């Protein structure tokens, strides 16, 4: 029994480490090449200015107490994969961003996988955000 518990503990611990490490993994062979990545960010800015700017604003600072910031957002930067799923599928209910609770609703925007990847690549490198995480459409398709 004790061994079994320990095994569960190790599995859980390993899963936790993996979960924490995942967002920080730099793009592997499957990640976009540098010029593709720059092009993706450029397209992502256009997507952002059409679909995101009304709530999160052009400087990514959001609207205090109503729409959370993306610039310097711990919620975004600690788990870009989660952010990608939210862009793709929407989010309802409370989230805590930089210690502040937000309780609104983000509708799924109907973006295609390329647009989701592009806008994520843009916001992860804009307004002082310096995430190493880079998305491709193929990766978003699996979400």
């Amino acid at each position, binding site marked *: 029994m004790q061994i079994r518990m320990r095994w569960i503990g190790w599995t859980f611990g390993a899963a936790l480490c993996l*979960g924490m490490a995942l967002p920080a993994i730099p793009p592997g062979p499957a990640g976009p090449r540098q010029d593709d990545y720059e092009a993706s960010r450029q397209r992502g800015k256009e997507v952002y200015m059409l679909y995101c700017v009304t*709530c999160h604003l*052009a400087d990514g600072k959001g609207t205090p107490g109503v729409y959370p910031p993306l610039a310097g957002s711990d919620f975004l930067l600690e788990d870009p*994969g989660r952010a990608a799923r939210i862009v793709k599928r929407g989010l309802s*209910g409370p989230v805590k961003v930089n210690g502040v609770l937000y*309780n*609104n*609703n983000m509708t799924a925007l109907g973006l295609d996988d390329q647009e989701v990847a592009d806008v994520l690549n843009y916001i992860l490198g804009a307004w002082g955000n310096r995430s190493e995480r880079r998305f491709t459409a193929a990766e978003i398709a*699996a*979400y």
Partner: protein
Amino acid sequence: MHHLWKLLLPAVLLSACMAFVKKDDSSGAAGIVSSEKLRFRVDTLLTGLEVPWGMTFLPNGDMLFTERDGELRLVRGGKLHPDPIGGVPEVRAKGQGGLLDIELHPDYAQNGWIYFSYASPAQPGEQGEGSNTALMRAKLNGHQLTDQQVIFKARPNYTAAHHYGGRIEFDREGYVYLSLGDRGGTFDNQTLANHRGKVVRLRDDGSIPEDNPFFAQEGAMKEVFSWGHRNPQGMALNPATGELWEHEHGPQGGDEVNIVRKGNNYGWAAITFGIDYDGSVISSDTAREGMEQPVLYWVPSIAPCGMDFVTSDTYAPWKGSLLVGSMKFRYLKRLEISDNKVTHQETLIEGIGRIRAVEEAPDGYVYLAVEGPGMIVRLVPVN
């Protein structure tokens, strides 16, 4: 990764439910809301919806509502029919687009016409790529739409997927009005040569009345009734005056309530009380000669969606008030109106969700369609 999503989903749903329960608690004993002039409770009729955008009520007591992703749904005896109604138009369900408003012909009992607005993908032969707002009428036979006729399509199409406007309203003479958004951007708004940011006026079959204000003006879109709007997502006929009222989203700040009058220019984007999303100035002017001032404007924006006037004795102390939904602050605004001026504002049911549609039904109750959580509720006065 989608396994992780599956794991997270219950947690997200649970926290959403908990937030909702908590809100009910804060509204007082047994969920009763004590507002300035009326005590009422919020009856939740349907849950589990996505983005219900428009509602209407049939003479037999059925309710029809749209889901923005393109479904038309029927509610009979308080129960949601499991299948969407067939025969709805193809919509561009992206960004703010999709299946939008729904409205009955004033003589629906005789002619059976139902009107829908929607983001219509570019059709062969149309100018521009992308989509724009269209108006269809059709009849409901069984669980199927028939006799579909597209009676208006805004021109040209745009690739942007926001600012469709989309509210439908009939006046007392039987003309149908459709609100159209500016389709994004601060350009090409102060011209009559396109349908950007206009309210159009049509006969019930889509033909254009010859007494429309710019019917005879060369180069002008003949359907235009009023112009210089940004993104009007609320429209209702004032029962006291018979005039059409609308509200529209400003940019950052500057949401407006206007009385829609023949030929009027409401000024977007030449004048505005708002600034752009990057903080830049769109116009240094809030007023100009030949442009109308709003009845009311909001800074900061409330992101208004849906509106209706209270006419029912069910809410005697609210009679004549204008109810406006807010998406940003997730509440309902009640505006008291006297001589076409707003004399008082009250905020109600804060935190309910992003209100998309506000309708006083023939049964005398006010219904709200809400997103996040997706639901339809009714306000029921209590003693």
